[in-house]
């Protein structure tokens, strides 16, 4: 498995691991006020810390691969995956903005945009992994 594929797996794994329970908690027992903001900030920090730690671990494990420049096939896979992520993000952000007409509050809209970001990242990472597995 190439270094870029490992980073795609790390991204997918960390986002699902942290944001899955976060959104589950929002649906089952929505926090109110400061607790809602606190939960959001904690989740984002957890994703960042986990991703940085795992990227460092993978880079230490295979330093040569980590320092190697991205080649043309990897760039093509990344571009295709970015396109998938962009469409999901744009659609999700539009839907989140549209909920203002349904009487949703700022917190719900913010979480809607975050959900779009999470969905876009999951599909972007997934598209990268599929690309690496299929060849391009």
């Amino acid at each position, binding site marked *: 498995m*190439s270094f870029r594929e490992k980073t795609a797996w790390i991204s997918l794994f960390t986002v699902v691991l942290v944001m899955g329970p976060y959104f589950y908690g929002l649906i089952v027992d929505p926090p109110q006020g400061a607790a809602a903001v606190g939960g959001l900030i904690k989740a984002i920090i957890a994703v960042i810390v986990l991703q940085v730690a795992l990227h460092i671990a993978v880079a230490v494990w295979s330093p040569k691969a980590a320092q190697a420049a991205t080649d043309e096939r990897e760039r093509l896979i990344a571009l295709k995956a970015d396109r998938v992520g962009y469409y999901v993000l744009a659609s999700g952000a539009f839907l989140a903005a549209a909920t203002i007409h349904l009487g949703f509050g700022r917190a719900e809209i913010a979480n809607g945009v975050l959900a779009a970001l999470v969905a876009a990242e999951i599909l972007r990472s997934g598209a990268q992994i599929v690309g690496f597995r*299929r060849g391009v």
Partner: protein
Amino acid sequence: MAAPPPIKNTIRRLRFDHGEMTQQALADAIGMTRQTIVAIEQGKYSPSLEAAFRISRVFGVGVEDVFGWEG
């Protein structure tokens, strides 16, 4: 699922003819990852024209000796 590109190549045989050159050695010689060499050899990925020329130069042959149109 997209059909594989109809481009065949002789990289595997050329590597064998050049002292059983490893995929990693070829990848290092042309600035690519080993996984990309694997994908090219298996016909899953068609390299750019520049990469095709780089590969052929490593083996000291023409591009047409490495890549060909199938069918």
